[in-house]
């Protein structure tokens, strides 16, 4: 069984977690879904499926914005 790690900056309710798992099962099927809280990401969500990182965090968007300003 694959492990899917989901990171947000807020503690999600059980209902929200269930909703997210329900959505993700369409892609990953039966997996071990682990939720993790990291306040540093400011907002949004990060997902790691054991092979690939999906990064929808505000922190990363700001980093991209910062690099654009620098260049």
């Amino acid at each position, binding site marked *: 069984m694959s492990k899917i790690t989901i990171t947000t900056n807020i503690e999600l309710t059980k209902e929200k977690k269930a909703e997210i798992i329900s*959505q993700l099962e369409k892609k990953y099927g039966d997996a071990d879904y682990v939720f993790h809280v990291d306040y540093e990401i400011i907002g949004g969500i990060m997902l790691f499926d054991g092979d690939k990182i999906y990064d929808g965090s505000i*922190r990363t968007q700001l980093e991209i914005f910062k690099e654009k300003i620098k260049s």
Partner: protein
Amino acid sequence: MNFTTMTALPLGLDGVKIALHMLNFLILMGGLTVLLYKPVLKFINNRQETIKKQLEENAAAKKEAEDKLSEYEQKIINAEKEIDNLHAEAAKELIAEKEAIILNANAKAEEIYNKAKAESEHERDNCIENLQNEVAEVAVKLASNILDREISKEENLKLIDACIKEWIEQ
């Protein structure tokens, strides 16, 4: 005929005496001619030869001296020409050296200018880059603080839903 009476002359001279004196004179002249003429003639000839030789030697010496003078004058002219040539060459070398020094100085000045310009441009680029970095850091820090404070839970959840929807569709 009385010869004495007939030939009596003043000063007690007479014909015989005069004749004897003349004979005596002729003998003397003959002796002198025999004894002195040839040696004197030889001496005179020798002397003439000597003088002639000396004149010839003097002429030769004069000619040699004139040749030497002419040669020395030519040497002086040549030396003066050589000196002029050396002066001209020295002047040329001096001018060439001066031009080389000027060229070298110009090249060095250009090199220094280009180096200073490059350093200045590099420094300017570094300043701009540092400024951009600082602006980016400050802007992102400010944005982070604002978003951290201002983003609502609902907006955050919407963002989470949008991300999941996008990833599933991929």
